[in-house]
């Protein structure tokens, strides 16, 4: 097992390394001179040159690269070209919102997908099955922002049951004292139940909008895997031992069907954590998605290049966890099998 872990960790480091190189190259390939962007269109060439020197643009490429990654991993993320604020502070302000939404949406998506897939595969329910496949078909093809708008129209405008596009808590409420930066958790910790409830309902619509297409993908995957596994002989053998239907299903069908879903889940979580600009726009969600989008438009590359690396690292780490979980659950990964020709 240790060998498996070591291999995966090394692989992840390699992936991150590759991401840094790629990010660096892309950034350098983009049009525009960062020094000029900092000092503005009216500055003198002298000012441009001096800022260039300051941010190291006149150094050899390899040195620049080294500075780039060493600064990133030390936490020195530079300053925004647009307004001079520390990139770290800017991202730090916005990241919790994205993380909270990502985790909430992920949990909601996975739980719904598992329950739905189980419902239609444990017992033959042709009607429910068809409905589920229809929903998944539509959900997979509909762009999240469109879903978001539809949800708002239905639940906010027409029925007034859920809050509108007013961010994490709306305009009236004040955030709870900061512990984890997650409003839901912090509110619970502080005992502020009304705040908890408010942040919860504010999370619902964006989470559904964000998660619907991933839900569709995962539920179809899980459904197919469950159907396939439930035809396997070992399930019949388990029943032949005298196990009740649900017990046999739970112990033998579920773990085996889950494995490929695990991989898919990792991809989904990684994607959510990278932030979704459009959802954030629609709901006025103060996450990093819109921060980065604005930065791109304003050519504020300091933010962009940090974000590229940050999301690469997050993605790789999430997948590392998935890989290791896989090795834990599936013994075939960590123990070699008998070799027969």
């Amino acid at each position, binding site marked *: 097992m240790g060998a498996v872990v070591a291999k995966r960790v090394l692989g992840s480091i390699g992936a991150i390394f590759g991401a840094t190189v790629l990010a660096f190259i892309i950034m350098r390939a983009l049009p525009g001179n960062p020094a000029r962007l900092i000092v503005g269109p009216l500055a003198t060439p002298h000012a441009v040159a001096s800022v260039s020197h300051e941010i190291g643009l006149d150094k050899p490429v390899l040195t620049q690269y080294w500075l780039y990654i060493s600064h990133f991993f030390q936490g020195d993320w530079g300053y925004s070209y647009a307004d001079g604020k520390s990139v770290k502070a800017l991202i730090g302000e916005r990241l919790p919102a994205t993380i909270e939404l990502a985790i909430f949406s992920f949990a909601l998506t996975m739980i719904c997908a598992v329950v739905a897939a189980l419902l239609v595969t444990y*017992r*033959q329910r042709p009607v429910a099955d068809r409905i589920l496949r229809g929903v998944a078909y539509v959900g997979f093809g509909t762009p999240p922002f469109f879903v978001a708008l539809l949800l708002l129209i239905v639940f906010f405008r027409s029925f007034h049951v859920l809050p509108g596009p007013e961010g994490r808590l709306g305009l009236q409420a004040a955030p709870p004292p900061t512990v984890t930066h997650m409003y839901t958790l912090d509110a619970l910790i502080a005992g502020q139940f009304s705040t908890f409830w408010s942040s919860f309902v504010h999370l619902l619509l964006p989470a559904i909008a964000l998660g619907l297409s991933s839900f569709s993908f995962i539920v179809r995957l899980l459904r197919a895997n469950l159907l396939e596994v439930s035809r*396997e*002989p*070992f399930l*019949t*053998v*388990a*029943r*032949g*031992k*005298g*196990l*009740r*239907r649900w017990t046999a299903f739970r*112990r*033998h069908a579920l*773990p*085996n069907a889950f*494995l490929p879903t695990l991989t898919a889940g990792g991809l989904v979580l990684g994607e959510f954590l990278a932030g979704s600009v459009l959802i954030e726009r629609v709901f006025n969600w103060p996450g990093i998605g819109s921060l980065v989008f604005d930065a791109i438009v304003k050519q504020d590359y300091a933010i962009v290049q940090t974000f590229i690396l940050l999301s690469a690292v997050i993605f790789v780490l999430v997948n590392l966890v998935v890989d290791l979980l896989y090795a834990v*659950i*599936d*013994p*075939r990964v960590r*123990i*070699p*099998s*008998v070799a*027969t020709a």
Partner: protein
Amino acid sequence: MRLRGIIGGGGGGGSSRGGATDVGQRRREQVEPGRAAGNGLPDAARSDMALSVRNLSTVFEDGQRTVHAVRDVSFDMRPTERLGVVGESGSGKSALALSILGLIEPPGRVVGGEIHLGGREISKLSDRALGAIRGKDIALVLQDPMSALDPVKTIGAQVIEAIAAHNPEMRRGAARRRAAELLREVDIPQPERRLDDYPHQYSGGMRQRVAIAMAIANNPSVLIADEPTTALDVTTQSQVLALLDRLVEQHGTAVILITHNLGIVSDFCDSIAVMYAGRFVETSGVDHIFLEPTHPYSEALLKCVPNPERLADGPLPAISGFPPDLAQLPQGCAFQPRCPVGREIPECRRQPPRPHEVRGAAGAAIVECHFAEQRIKEVKV
């Protein structure tokens, strides 16, 4: 209704093993041809039998089509009897096994019949009640050892599961010891260490032994083995059959061995039922089938298999045509379109044959053929 005598050899008498003499004799008095009683069932299910099945029928409903997988099958098995069920794909033999165990899943369902296990009627029991019986009084071994074990659980966990399902009060340590004991019984070396290994680390032969260990864990009175050696090498097959032979002798288990291989049946079984299109077309003591196969299908099946003892050159007498579509069965005999005897005979085409009890040199047999009596005099292999 249908007549069913009790067919089979085995039981206590050593002389009837392999001998061609009194296999049917012993049973003769219980066979009653075609007597119409008040409820139409001349021969009700027997409570002194290990397993007694009457009129079992199973269908699979797939939208428009209804596939009749098992059609009105009846038979009895004495304790320690070994019945070989022989048929090709589409004969319904696997469906039969699952039907007896109550493991038919939608879109299939058992639509009729009675199953008496050790005197107790089990066909109408709930899944929960059947769960108490499966693995304990009647057990199952499946064909493909590669997929009969859960790949993500240890061998020990799976054997213990078979034990614990019927011994909930047993402690972990005791269950582990019992599991190791079972592995030792099936000739797996160093069983204590094997408990923590995973199925993919082992060969097909070993996995099949584990499957057998799980099946005999609670000393069932009936074991159903569905093609248990088909996926194994010849030498491994021989070893596994020898193992099975020893175990069922020791534990006194009755065995239904489902296979397409007549050689295995001749080695292992006391009685045989040849299955075609969901029905038992010929049921008899095992020697009868090889000496005087009466049903044309049995005869054809024997002849079309290359048999080293009958080194015949020239083309094998193959059975023409294809197995019937179980959703569109003909009105008369299901084998008729391919039958060298009945192909042109209107009676075979129109009338489904009733079971006929016949006697040959090797004992009695029940044959579903219009020409059973004539053929028993003619057929010599």
